């Protein structure tokens, strides 16, 4: 599929502590490859994948970041224009889970306020080394009201699913945004057009409660 045919490009950041598997998930998702060892990421890297979101071609632009703490001072540049964030921890590493609150704070401070987040607990295949139980991740995700999956890059568990969830939420967010922007633009002009547009978008995105204002 040629890039030009894509309806939209979604910029997604993968964040989380060092060695939780950020590079791994990007390669698994975009290239369908898995290796035990990757060179630790310094700076940033990105890969693209074209997906079909309920029949609509979407280009996912996935940015792989460095996990080491000092590189977070550079994150303002990373965050620019990010629509979605895949926040990741390693279920075999308690510290990587504990640091999630730090990451969420960092996201809140730097990312756009309506950025879409999902939480991934990686390496769920490593049963014997597990340190963080699934309900811990679940509880945290519920607290922050973000979707959560345990994933395994090694065994390809939930990888497509989590990115698809992210993409779907980004689409909902964007159509809602466009709608409110349009509404704003149209206010004072022809009301019929606005209505018409609303119903069209409603149909298109199948949002459950598109009119509920969250502010």
């Amino acid at each position, binding site marked *: 599929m040629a890039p030009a045919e894509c309806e939209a490009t979604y910029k997604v950041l993968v964040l989380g502590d060092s060695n939780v598997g950020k590079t791994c998930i990007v390669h698994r998702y975009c290239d369908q490859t898995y*290796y035990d060892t990757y060179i630790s990421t310094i700076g940033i890297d990105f890969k693209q994948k074209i997906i079909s979101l309920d029949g609509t071609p979407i280009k996912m632009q996935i940015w792989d970041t460095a996990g080491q703490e000092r590189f977070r001072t550079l994150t303002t540049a990373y965050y620019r224009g990010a629509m979605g964030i895949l926040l990741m921890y390693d279920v075999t590493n308690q510290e990587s889970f504990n640091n999630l609150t730090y990451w969420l704070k960092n996201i809140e401070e730097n990312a756009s306020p309506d950025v879409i987040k999902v939480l991934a607990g990686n390496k769920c295949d490593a049963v014997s080394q597990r340190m963080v139980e699934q309900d811990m991740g679940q509880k945290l995700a519920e607290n922050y009201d973000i979707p959560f999956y345990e994933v395994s890059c090694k065994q390809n568990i939930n990888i497509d699913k989590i990115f698809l969830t992210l993409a779907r939420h980004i689409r909902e967010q964007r159509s809602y945004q466009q709608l409110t922007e349009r509404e704003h633009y149209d206010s004072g002009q022809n009301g019929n057009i606005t209505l018409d547009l609303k119903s069209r978008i409603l149909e298109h995105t199948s949002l459950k409660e598109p009119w509920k204002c969250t502010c």
Partner: protein
Amino acid sequence: MWPQDILSKLGQIPDDPNSQPDYRFDEFGFRVEEEDGPEQNSNKLLGVPLMEDAQDRLKWLAHLEFSHNNDSSDLTWERVELRLPKTDKLRQMAREGIPHSLRPQLWMRLSGGLEKKINSEMSYRDIVKVSSNDALATSKQIEKDLLRTMPSNACFSNMNSTGVPRLRRVLRGLAWLYPDIGYCQGTGMMAASLLLLMEEEDAFWMMCTIVEDLLPASYYSSSLIGIQADQRVLRTLICSYLPDVDITLKQHDIELSLITLHWFLTVFASVVHMKILLRIWDMFFFDGSIVLFQITLGMLKIKEPTLRNLENSAQIFNALSDIPGEIDDVEQLLKVSLEVACSLTEVVIETHRRRHLAYLMTDQGALVGNPESAPNLPKQHLTRLAAIILGFIASIFYHLGFACVKILNPYRRK
């Protein structure tokens, strides 16, 4: 450590998941990917093994003998000065490439590494001893990265590889010596590259020289402010030396530092082929950080015509990221680099640096502190630390009734 020695051992390690006995390795111990049949393709790097020209070697030896050895006895490394004077002639020779067999000795003498090693009051052995603590946070971070540094190299591919304990010791030593840096990801790439051709102790002192003398302050510290300033300097230089590239970057709103930060952070160790790296480092150990700018400008210049034909920012971003890995003609790279940056001097860079550092410090407020007042603390610091720590250890042992002499014996373990 010689990759050849390690290769012979490789067959004896049965359970390495990522390597198979039928892989081919190049002269540096890197696994060779043979999918494309490297001999047939146009890539000069893969096709031609690293060969040393005997004539070149003679030229270097003659130069060393002529300029630094006044008596008529045979030339030995002991007679060559610790630090070679930086003449234009020598610079030219370094740019043409140092014969590979002389690199370990010459890099030490061009960069100031040997001087540092000899003048240090604390030996590498002592540093290794005091820094060998598994429980430190830095040790844990280092441990995570040991196999993620050069996984495709036989010397670093698994925990039994010979390079791994050496890399661990060097990185722990650096983290101990520079507490304001600790362990910074990326330094491992440089250390591992050095370990492929130098003795562990020399590699360590080369790393110290890079951190203290060749690069500006705060390149690796937790604020990374020194390297951030250099990214802005680079951006300014592109504006004047490569206006077309500048326009492209502006038009497509590309934050170049996302790409070039790790080129600078690892002095290209993570991004170019080893054979290219050696030549860049021949220059870097002679001239220092100016080489980062020369080479980066050169790489961008080479890619300039391609960039013009690209339509969207993603393509441009990718094309820029791919530049170092695609370089296969080192002579062309160096030629273009020195041409495009021919008027670039240390003074120009330093002026921009001060300006950008000031901006960054204003942006980041008091969090950062003044890097001028806390540079990466060279030898005085080392000496002071050594004195404090040895004094401390000595006093403990004294109270325990040991003779102090014993602790100063480097071979003795606690």
